[in-house]
Structures are given as structure tokens and as C-alpha cells.
């Protein structure tokens, strides 16, 4: 038995192809990319060694700081909104809609599978101010408010990116957290209700603590996704106005492919990876502490 389940040849046949492809196209490039951070140039003009210049440049580069600031701000606000809205929806599904929620769950979930490029082009039209007045501005006009040039100011562009993200993802987080809420035993909720805990008190004292594990994984999943935001920015605002909505991912892409600076591009990519790690560990540790307290 041991010999069959530990058959070396079979392991090689089954695991070999996956491990080979994964190593050659993921692991080797990751190490390679680390090597690029101390170089300057690109594969067409050649590379020269420049030590830690890329890192020094990164920390002195106002555009890099603006990209970090945007990335962090976007990721934190988006994560709070996504997971918050998702949790709200999941409560709605479990406590108010009960069994009739299936169709609504399915409809609100749908936008997550849409291509982000398509959604972004659609949102450009929805929020358009000129030459035609889009539905959102028309609605504002109806309320007596002047049309807003949503893509002309940094603040408005930021909010549209958030709104679009929320529109696409709230249903997804709703279902994700809904699955977590279903795991809470019905007897537990029933006995809490009999004890007089209703509404907010029930949610705060029973539902919230018990759904903490699934909330935690949602937070980590969300922050990791939103720190890497790329499609929606490229397609909706292309980083503008100016570079007001340029996250690290887009800045890295521009640096590498528009300006041909592979060394500096790799440095930005490495910083993004570190940022993802820091946030994941931070969320993981801060929620761990809360669990032990309560």
C-alpha cells in the first residue's frame, strides 16, 4: 500500500508537467525579476548594472509615491465597501429574504463575471457629461443639480472607480459571506432570540463573531485583489486625470513598456508584492488578536 501510494514514477508522471511549467514560467521569472531590480535597461538595448539606484529612485520619485498612495487608498476603501456591502447583502439574504433569496442572489452576483473592460466602457457612458448627457447626469439634472464632469477631477474619478468596483463585486461578496452565515447553527440563533436578542444586538453579539473566519478570508481576498487593480483603471480612467488614479500596477506597466525601463519596472513590481504581503499579514494578525480578546 505505502509503496503504491508513494510510487516515485507515478508522482513524476502526475506532478512533473505541472511543476515543470509552473517553475519555468512562474518561479524562474520571479527570481529573474528580482535580478532586474539592480539593472537598468531593457532586452532590446541591453542591461547595465546600477546597484540600488532603482530603489533610491523609487523612494525619491513623486509619481511612485502618488501611485503607492492611490493604491493603498483605493484598496482600503474598496475592501471596506466590498466586504461591508457583501455582509449587508448576506444579512439581507439570510434574515429577511430567507428561502426566496435565490433569484435575487443570482442576479446581484452576475456582474462579477462580466469582463471589466466592458463594464468600464459602459460606466464611461453612464457617467458621461458631454457631448451627450449620460443617465447619471440626467438623473442629477432632474434633481436640479448641474452635470458633473466625473472624469475631469481626481476625487470624482476615484469615486467612480469605487462605484464600479462595488457594482461588480458586491453580489459576489454577498454570496461568499452568505455561505458563511448559513454555517451558523439555527438553534444558536433561536436561543439567542428567545433570550431577547433581536436585530442589531443579535448581529453584533452572535452573527458577527461567528462569521469572523469567513469575514477574515474575504478581507484578505479583497485586499489582495484591490491592491492589484489594473483592468478597471486602464479601461475606465487610464490613470487620469493626470496621474491621479494611477496605481502601482499601471505605473509599473507604463514604466516598463512605454519608457522601456525594465529595471525600474521590476522594482515597482517588487514593491507591490511587498505591499500585498504587508497587508495580508496585517489583517491576519489584527483579527487574530481580536479573536483571543473576545
Amino acid at each position: 500500500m505505502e509503496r503504491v501510494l508513494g510510487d516515485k514514477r507515478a508522482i513524476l508522471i502526475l506532478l512533473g508537467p505541472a511543476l515543470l511549467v509552473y517553475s519555468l514560467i512562474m518561479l524562474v521569472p520571479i527570481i529573474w525579476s528580482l535580478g532586474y531590480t539592480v539593472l537598468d535597461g531593457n532586452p532590446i538595448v541591453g542591461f547595465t548594472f546600477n546597484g540600488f539606484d532603482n530603489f533610491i529612485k523609487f523612494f525619491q520619485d513623486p509619481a511612485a509615491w502618488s501611485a503607492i498612495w492611490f493604491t493603498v487608498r483605493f484598496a482600503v476603501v474598496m475592501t471596506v465597501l466590498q466586504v461591508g456591502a457583501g455582509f449587508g447583502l448576506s444579512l439581507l439574504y439570510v434574515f429577511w429574504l430567507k428561502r426566496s433569496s435565490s433569484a435575487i442572489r443570482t442576479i446581484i452576483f452576475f456582474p462579477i463575471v462580466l469582463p471589466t473592460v466592458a463594464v468600464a466602457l459602459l460606466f464611461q457612458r453612464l457617467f458621461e457629461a458631454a457631448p451627450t448627457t449620460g443617465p447619471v447626469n440626467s438623473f442629477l439634472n432632474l434633481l436640479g443639480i448641474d452635470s458633473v464632469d466625473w472624469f475631469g477631477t481626481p476625487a470624482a474619478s476615484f469615486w467612480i472607480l469605487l462605484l464600479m468596483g462595488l457594482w461588480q463585486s458586491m453580489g459576489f461578496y454577498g454570496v461568499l459571506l452568505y455561505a458563511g452565515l448559513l454555517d451558523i447553527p439555527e438553534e444558536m440563533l433561536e436561543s439567542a432570540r428567545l433570550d431577547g436578542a433581536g436585530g442589531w444586538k443579535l448581529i453584533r453579539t452572535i452573527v458577527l463573531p461567528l462569521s469572523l473566519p469567513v469575514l477574515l478570508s474575504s478581507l484578505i481576498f479583497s485586499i489582495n485583489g484591490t491592491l492589484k487593480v489594473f483592468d478597471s483603471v486602464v479601461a475606465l480612467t487610464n490613470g487620469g486625470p493626470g496621474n491621479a488614479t494611477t496605481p502601482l500596477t499601471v505605473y509599473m506597466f507604463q514604466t516598463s513598456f512605454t519608457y522601456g525601463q525594465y529595471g525600474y519596472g521590476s522594482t515597482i513590481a517588487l514593491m507591490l508584492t511587498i505591499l500585498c504581503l504587508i497587508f495580508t499579514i496585517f489583517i491576519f494578525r489584527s483579527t487574530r488578536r481580536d479573536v483571543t480578546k473576545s
Partner: protein
Amino acid sequence: MTTQTTTIPRVTPRQNPRSAVPRKRKVTARQFFSRLPIRVFLAVLLVIVIYPMLWMFLGSFKTQSEFLNEPFWALPQSWSLDNYVSVFDSGFGTYIVNSIIVVFPSLAVILIVGVAAGFALEVMVWKGRGTVLLLFLAGIMVPTQMIILPLFTIYFRTGLTGSYWPMILTYIATGLPLTVFMMATFFRSVPREIFEASTLDGASILRSFWAVGLPLVKNAIFTVGLVQFFFLWNDLLIALTFTNSDALRTIQVGLLNFTGQYGAVQYGPTFAAIAVNVLGTLFIYLFLNQQVMKGLTAGSVKG
């Protein structure tokens, strides 16, 4: 117990104003009004989710002058397919074909190779399998930006640039971590006794994998395949990096560049292009929504 006794009186007065409406039909009216805010909220929510898509489909039939002169809620004056014709005239058909050429072979390789690896990592017993699984896990977190520059160099040096290969190879590699991890999880839920029994019956492990393991996780493979399909089909970053000519563009890159080709936005064709792009996913979702929901949420909790 003490906290509960103090909260009961605090909760009841808050409910009173609601029931203070008509006394006669007390229960039904109360039920109706307490349900009303939720119903209104739900209706608004559904409109917000559905209306943009409806607006887009209607818009794909409108002419440029209808866009410029009519309010946004006007219905199209005719159901002509002119916009769709102009979308396909501008080369959108090629983009769709390109997407199919790069996505489906990648998907097939990801599933075959990934399922086998998941089996080797979960069912089989050997030293170091935990480390290898962790190695695959790391791939889920590392941003794709970390690998595209070296890959660009590799593909450039090996002369693959300018073909479909860079996209296919990169898709396979980026799709593997999640697939391997999800398949390992699915194999974990299969009782080990089943594999032990088939081994006792004299089957080799490769045979157990083929004749026992695969049929048991058939549904799981389908679910993972759906999830990966959406990731690959909707991908922009990798497609944007490795398409250096119009002839290679996938549907997403094609759509991104669609509006840029004209001085002024051609509304009708743009809406039709979005509609064409969305239609594929819409159809899949229409028929397989439960599996899609299950797959996507399973992929994230574990990931």
C-alpha cells in the same frame, strides 16, 4: 441573564411607532410597513444592477443621432443590426477567434495537468508534498507584474514574440496555482479508503487516478474549468503585454482599443461591441449560474 433583562424594555419601545398605524388590520399593516423599506431597497438595488446592462443592449440598436438628440431613456427607433455589422467589419470577429485560440488550449492544459498534480499532492504519500503545495500557493499571491518582464525577455529571445504562444504559456502558468490548490481540496474530501481499496484490488496508482479518482471529481473539474474560463477570457494584463499587433488582439484588448480609433465616440458601435463582448459570459451564466457561483466563491475562500 442580567444583560438580557435590561435590554428587553429598551427594545420594545423602539418597535412601538411602527405598530401605531391603523389598529384594525394591525398585523397585516404592520407586516406590510415593516417589510416596505426592505422591498423598496431591493427594488432599487435590482434596478441598479440590471438597468445599466439593459441600457447597453437597447443602446446597441440606436443611431448616433439618437444618442446625441434623444434623452437616455428613449427606446431605439428601429431594431436594425447596423451597429453590429460595423463592429464585425472593424475586425471584432478576429478578436473573438484569437480569444478562442488562446483560451481553450490553455484551459485544457491547465485542467489536465492541474488535476493530476492535485491528485499527486493530496492522495499520494511522499516527503515534501506540503512544501510543493505551499510553492503553488505562493503563486496565487504574487502579482502577475512580477513575471511579465522576464517572460517578455524569454519570449523575445526564443522568437515566440508575435505568436499566440506567449499568451498560452503564461495563461497556463498563472492558471495552475489556483487549479492545483482547488483540486487538492476536492481530492481531500474523497474518502481515502476508496483509493486504498482500489490499490488492494491490485490497481496501479495511475490506474486508480484514471479509473477511480477522475470520475469522482468530475463535477469539481467542471467547476474549476468554469472559474478558469472566466479568468482567462476576461484577462487584460497578460493579453495587453503579449499582443504586439492588431492581428493577435484578444476580445478584451480589442474592446479596449475600440473607442480609441475614432475622433468622436461612435456610440452605437461601441455599445454593440460591449454587447458582443458581454454576450458570451451572459449565456454561460444564464445556464450555469449555480455552478459559477459555487466555483468562484470556493476559489476565493481557499485562495
